[in-house]
């Protein structure tokens, strides 16, 4: 299958990052948001991200222009008519995601792949909203999508072999990332392991065993993580970590997934990490640690 035009629904953090990566790889991206204001904001954030990459010598001005030229903001699914693949990446809300899948299913011919970037929700349940559940699949990217070359390809109960094969081809040949196959299960591999890692770090902190700095240093230096668990949580967004843990706690019913109290408190207090400027550490507007 040829992938030239890709629809991306949702221009939040993940949507921006996915759109940016696809355009960098040479595809035309049709980026959809609920309101023109949100779309505008998403496109602006992509531009800021590209500027940051130019500062790091990763891109040139000409390449930035090319990338931005390939990203087209749209407001309606009728603009997806030419797309070979649609990636949904709105908030982790089952009902809203089902509505999006149902609408995309109606709007696109049956050979178009409908992928969801969900990290915790049931693919099978999402697919049940479509008249063609066999073309619905999970494609879980890791942030920042530009840099992290891994995609969890998630099969729901009714995802067809053909859909899986095309998706794997897309991931490994078109966007040059490693695709790992995962069967439906809350948190798949990455979210399940990393959220437990963060949650356990929070327990160590609660118990007064070590400080935030020392826990981060221990794991960063000791085990070659790029960021320690707390900075990692700040970068994911504490609310997202909290939501993922809550969801896995509900699904698995096991205490180890119960979000730490510190995490709950910080989310309630609006300390969400990089996006709010403060979490376990403080950050400037560019998302660099102060």
């Amino acid at each position: 299958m040829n992938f030239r035009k890709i629809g991306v629904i949702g221009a939040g953090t993940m949507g921006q990052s996915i759109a940016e990566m696809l355009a960098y790889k040479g595809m035309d991206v049709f980026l959809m948001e609920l309101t023109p204001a949100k779309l505008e904001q998403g496109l602006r954030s992509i531009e800021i991200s590209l500027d940051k990459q130019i500062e790091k010598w990763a891109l040139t001005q000409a390449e930035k222009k090319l990338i931005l030229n390939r990203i087209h903001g749209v407001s309606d699914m009728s603009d997806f008519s030419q797309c070979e693949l649609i990636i949904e990446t709105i908030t982790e809300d089952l009902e809203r995601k089902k509505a999006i899948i149902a609408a995309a299913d109606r709007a696109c011919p049956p050979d178009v792949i409908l992928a969801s970037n969900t990290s915790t929700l049931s693919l099978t349940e999402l697919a049940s909203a479509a008249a063609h559940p066999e073309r619905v699949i999970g494609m879980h990217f890791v942030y920042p999508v530009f840099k992290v070359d891994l995609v969890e390809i998630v099969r729901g109960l009714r995802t067809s072999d053909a859909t899986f094969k095309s998706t794997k081809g897309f991931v490994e040949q078109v966007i040059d990332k490693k695709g790992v196959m995962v069967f439906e299960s809350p948190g798949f591999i990455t979210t399940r392991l990393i959220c437990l890692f963060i949650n356990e770090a929070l327990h160590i902190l609660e118990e007064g065993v070590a400080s935030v700095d020392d826990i981060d240093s221990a794991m960063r230096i000791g085990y070659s993580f790029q960021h320690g668990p707390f900075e990692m949580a700040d970068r994911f967004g504490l609310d997202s970590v909290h939501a993922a843990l809550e969801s896995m706690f509900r699904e698995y019913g096991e205490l180890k997934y119960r979000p730490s109290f510190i995490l709950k408190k910080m989310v309630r207090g609006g300390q969400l990490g990089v996006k709010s400027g403060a979490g376990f550490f403080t950050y400037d507007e560019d998302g660099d640690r102060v």
Partner: protein
Amino acid sequence: MNILVINAGSSSLKYQLYDMKDESVLASGRVERIGMDSSIVTHEPEGRPEVRIVDEILEHTSAIKRVLDMLTHPEHGVLRSVQEIDAVGHRVVHGGEAFKESAVVTPETKLEIRKLFDLAPLHNPAHMMGITAVEAVLPGVTQAVVFDTAFHQTMPQQSYLYPVPMVLYKRHAIRRYGFHGTSHAYVSERAAEVLGRPLEELKLVSCHIGNGASATAILHGKSFDTSMGMTPLEGLMMGTRSGDLDPAIVPYTMNKEDLTLSEVNSMLNKHSGLLAISGLSSDMREITEAMFDGDKNAKLAFEMYAYRVKKYIGAYAAAMNGIDVLLFTAGVGENSVVLREHVCDGLTFLGIKLDKELNAQRSKEARVISTPDSSVAVMVVPTNEELLIARDTFKLARQRGAEQA
């Protein structure tokens, strides 16, 4: 037999159509700014006025289609139909050790070229786009690939190996390959012709200085050493490429600036060279102008650039234990009077005497620019890689035709 020669870059594509009966050019042209809404197609049918079109051309397949439309255009065209194109020859930068000479495009050839993407990240993927585009638009036509590295396959081990663990060469073919081989081969042959001396007797240093730049020591007609290495990043300072540097700078900078591999790669390939030092441009013409207008950074960029060219000429004269011919070619080499003068001024100890008047004359012909008593003939030889590509493609297409018949 008509041969279309294509040189596909990432956002541009140059073409030339040859009639191989007499090696005449029927038409040539280029597509620039591919991928933008204002791409420019410039088509020059031989002996007729140039045609220029600005339009949206988003990728290479559309660019090739445009080229074919131009070649068969009722008014500006030179062919009745695309069937009159007998073969297409592509320039390919990196042929690794797999290609010691030009080759016909087959699935195996394409696979080998793909394997070499890591080694020439700016070039091979773009050439591949050109090859795929021709396949899509002209299915069935014979395509040939002519490699920049092939000419340098004659380098001895002492030139092509790096003093690093040998296992790296055996496992990953990490060695020096050299580039611009088609150009160095062509200009050295032309130089010998113009001088009326057999190439097999000459010690020649050829400086191909364009946006990318390399110097080659050509001993008795064969590449003995060349400044570009495993990738086109080594050697001379270039428009946006650093050229030689202490390899320890790479890990040091990555650590200090928190850079990834691809960021540091892009820094050295696209954000260094003339552009980095001048802070102004990667184009030697603009650098020279700014220098004459008193821009200090431009002057520094120019001087560093010339200095590094001079060092290589000296090194290669030593490598061959002598030098009979010093030649300049490609954009900067053919056109920058001031750069040639600057380089030669510091090489009088080799017996080089530049004739400043001859050096200042503009011409499209191969010519000598040194004084009659200069012990080294300094020459400007316009390169013509396209013609060499057309010749190789013609030869391969004829062989193939004979095999099929």
